[in-house]
C-alpha cells in the first residue's frame, strides 16, 4: 500500500504514514472517529487510567490498568466523516503534546455533530480530559437523537453533561496541588440548517460566509468579563496577563456548574460552520479575517480548508495546539 499524501510505503494496519505523518485512517475509512491524542512514552500519563508516566512500561503497557498506549504521531490528525465535514488537530510548534481533541459525526444528510475540546494545560491530564469529553459528548448527543429528544438545546446539554461526567471520572492525584483534569468544550448540533451550539470556556464557533461572518459563541474568559463589566477597555483587558484565563470549564471541580451557554443559529445561506480552539483564533479572532483565510485556501472543500487553517496558525508561531472542525453548507 501507499500513502495517499506522499506515496510512501505503508502497512495495512498503519494509522499514520511514517514518511510524512499523514493520517491514513481518515483516507481509508472516512466514517471513523479519530481521537487526536499524543504519546511521548517518557512523559505522558496513561491514556486510559491516568496513571503517572512511570507506570508505562517499555512496550507502552500501563502496569496499572494494562491498556497499551496508542502510538499516534504528534503531527496533524485529520478526520473526514463526510465530504462536507472535516477536522484537523495539530500539536502546534511549541507544545510537546496535543491536549486538544475533536470528534465529528455525520448522522444524515442534514444532521451533523461537531465537538471540539481544549484540555486545560494547568490541570492534571488535560489530554485525557479533552479526549474523554469529545467522545462522551458525541455519544450522548447521538443517543439523545436516537431517543427522539426534540429540543436541540436539551440534546446539547445532555452531551455536555456526559462530557462533564466523563471528565470528572478521571482519577485525581490527591497529592498534587494541580487542579483536577479540565477542558473547554464547544459542541454543535446541526439539523435542517439550524445550528445549536453549547460551550464552556474559550473554544469557539464561527459562521463564515461571504456576506457576513460572525462569531457565534462568547468566551467564558476573564477578558470578556472584564470588558463587559466596563472596568477595562478592550485594549487594557487584552494586555492583562489574565486576558486568556478562562472562567468556566468542565472538570471534577465544576460538577455543579456544567451547564453550557447555548446559542441557536439559523443558517442563512451557503457558508461554513467553524469550531476551533484558541490555537487558531488567537491568530485570527476577527470573523472577517477568518473568511479571508478560508478564501486563501483556494479550495471550497472541508479538509483542504482545515489543513490550510492549521498551516496558517503554525506559520504564525503555533504557540498552542490547534484544532478546527469545518462543516460546509452548500
Amino acid at each position, binding site marked *: 500500500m501507499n500513502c495517499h499524501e506522499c506515496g510512501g510505503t505503508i502497512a495495512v494496519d498503519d494509522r499514520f504514514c511514517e514518511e510524512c505523518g499523514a493520517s491514513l485512517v481518515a483516507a481509508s475509512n472516512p466514517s471513523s472517529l479519530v481521537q487526536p491524542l499524543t504519546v511521548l512514552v517518557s512523559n505522558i500519563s496513561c491514556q486510559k487510567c491516568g496513571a503517572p508516566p512511570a507506570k508505562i512500561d517499555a512496550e507502552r503497557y500501563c*502496569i496499572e490498568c*494494562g*491498556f497499551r498506549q496508542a502510538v499516534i504521531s504528534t503531527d496533524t490528525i485529520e478526520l473526514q466523516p463526510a465530504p462536507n465535514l472535516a477536522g484537523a488537530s495539530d500539536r502546534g510548534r511549541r507544545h510537546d503534546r496535543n491536549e486538544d481533541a475533536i470528534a465529528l459525526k455525520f448522522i444524515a444528510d442534514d444532521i451533523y455533530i461537531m465537538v471540539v475540546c481544549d484540555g486545560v494545560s494547568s490541570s492534571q491530564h488535560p489530554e485525557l480530559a479533552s479526549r474523554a469529553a469529545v467522545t462522551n459528548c458525541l455519544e450522548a448527543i447521538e443517543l439523545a437523537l436516537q431517543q427522539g429528544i426534540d429540543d436541540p438545546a436539551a440534546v446539547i446539554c445532555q452531551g455536555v453533561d456526559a462530557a462533564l461526567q466523563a471528565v470528572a471520572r478521571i482519577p485525581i492525584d490527591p497529592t498534587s496541588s494541580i487542579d483536577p483534569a479540565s477542558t473547554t468544550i464547544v459542541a454543535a448540533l446541526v439539523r435542517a440548517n439550524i445550528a445549536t451550539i453549547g460551550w464552556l470556556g474559550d473554544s469557539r464557533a464561527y459562521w463564515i460566509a461571504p456576506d457576513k461572518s460572525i462569531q457565534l459563541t462568547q468566551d467564558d474568559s476573564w477578558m470578556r468579563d472584564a470588558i463587559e463589566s466596563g472596568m477595562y477597555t478592550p485594549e487594557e483587558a487584552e494586555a492583562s496577563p489574565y486576558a486568556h484565563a478562562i472562567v468556566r470549564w468542565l472538570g471534577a471541580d465544576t460538577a455543579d456548574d456544567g451547564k453550557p451557554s447555548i446559542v441557536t443559529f439559523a443558517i442563512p445561506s451557503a457558508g461554513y460552520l467553524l469550531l476551533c480552539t484558541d490555537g487558531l483564533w488567537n491568530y485570527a479572532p476577527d470573523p472577517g479575517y477568518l473568511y479571508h483565510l478560508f478564501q486563501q485556501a483556494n479550495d471550497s472543500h472541508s479538509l483542504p480548508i482545515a489543513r490550510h487553517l492549521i498551516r496558517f496558525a503554525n506559520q504564525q508561531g503555533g504557540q498552542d495546539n490547534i484544532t478546527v472542525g469545518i462543516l460546509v453548507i452548500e
Partner: protein
Amino acid sequence: MFNAEVFQNPYLPQGAREVNAIMTITTSDSDGVAVAAPITNQRLFGIICDTSGSMGGAKMIAAKDAIVKIINLLPDDAAFFVVTGSSRAKLLVPLVNAVPENKMRAISQVKEISANGGTLMSTWLHTALGEFNKMPQAICQALLLTDGQNDLNDEHDLTRILDAAEGKFQCDCRGVGTDWRVGELQKIAAKLLGTTDIIPSPDRIAADFQEILTKAMGKTVSDVSLRLWTPVGAKILFCKQVSPEIVDVTSRAKVVSERIIEYPTGAWGSNESRDYHFCIQINAGNVGDEMLAGRASLITQTNGQETKITEAKILATWTEDEAKTAKIDRRVAHYTGQAELSQFIQEGLEAKAQGNIDVATVKLGKAVKIAHDSGNEATAKLLRSVVDVEDAAAGTVRIKRTVAKEDEMMLETRSTKTARIQK
C-alpha cells in the same frame, strides 16, 4: 534453560472480558548456553513408609526391598533419611549423607522394620519435616507409601502439619493395594506439590520407587514460583496446571503485592515441560484497544534472593473482525477438553459408586469420546477397564458388570493425566 511461551487468541469481540491462555514452560539442558536459573546442588530425599499392622506380609517385604534398592541408588552427594510410621512416627534413619557406609547402616536398619499399629500420618509428616528443616537450602523431596486410610481422628492434625510443611518439601504419595483412599493421598500430594498414584501389587513397588527417585534426583532448580501480574479490575477466574496432569492451583495463590500473586510450582529438573491454563477476567476495552491482561513469570528463590527466570505476556485486543475473534486457540481448546475429560471421569465414577448407572454411563461415555478425540490413549485404556466401548467416537459405552477395584482406583488417580496436543 527455562523457556515460557503463551498460546492464546488475544482477539476479543466488543464487550468481551474473558481471556484464556495456555502457558507452556519447558526446561532444557543448556547446551553450552548460560543457565538462567541458579542451580541447587544439595538434594535431600526423605523416605516415609507406612508400617501399620495392615502392611504386614508381602507388602512389607516388598516395601523394605524397594527402600533398600533406592538407598543403594542414591547418589553419593545426596542426603537422605527414613521415617517409618504407624500410630507414631519413628525416625529410623536420621538425616545422613548418602555415602556407602551410611547407606550400609541404613539398609541394616530397614531390614529390621516390622509392621504393627495404626495409621496417624500427621506424625509421619511431622517427623519428616523436622529432618527437612535441617537442610532448608536443599531441594527437599520425599515419597510416602501407605496401604490404608488415615485414622479419622488425625484429620485436624494432618491439616495442620500440611500447612506447616507446605513449601518446605515436596512429597509424592503412593498407595499400595486398594484399601487406601485416593482423595486422602491426593490432598497430601496436592499440598506438597507431589503426585499420587496407585501401586496395585507389592511386586511393583520397587520399580515405582526407582522412578520417583530418578525424577527427584533430576531436579536442579528449587522453589520456583509462578508469578502473575494482572491489571486493575482483573479477576483470575482460574489457574490450572494442565500438563502433565491437571492440578487446579487457583486457591493456592499467595498475594505478593496489589497486582501480583504467585503459585508455588516446586522444584524443576531439566527437560521438563508443564502447561498452565490461565483464565482472567478483565475490564472491557474499546474496539482497537490493546491490553496486557497478564504477565506470568517464573521466579526462583535462593538464599533469599529472587531471580526471574522467564516471562510471558497474556494479551487482549478488541476488534470487530469476527474472523479473528471466533477462533479458539487450539491449545486452549485441547486443555479445556482434557479438564472436562478428568471431570467426567470423576463424576462418572462417583455416580457409579452411588449406583446411578445411567448417569455413570453418560459421563464415562463422554470421557471415552474426549479421550478418543484428543488422542489421550493412556486414559482411554484406563477407561476400557471400567467400560465396554461400543463406539469411541460417539461416546457409546456400557459399564462393565464387574470391575476390579484396582482398575477403578487407577482410573480415579490417573484421570488427571493429560495428553499433550497432537502436532
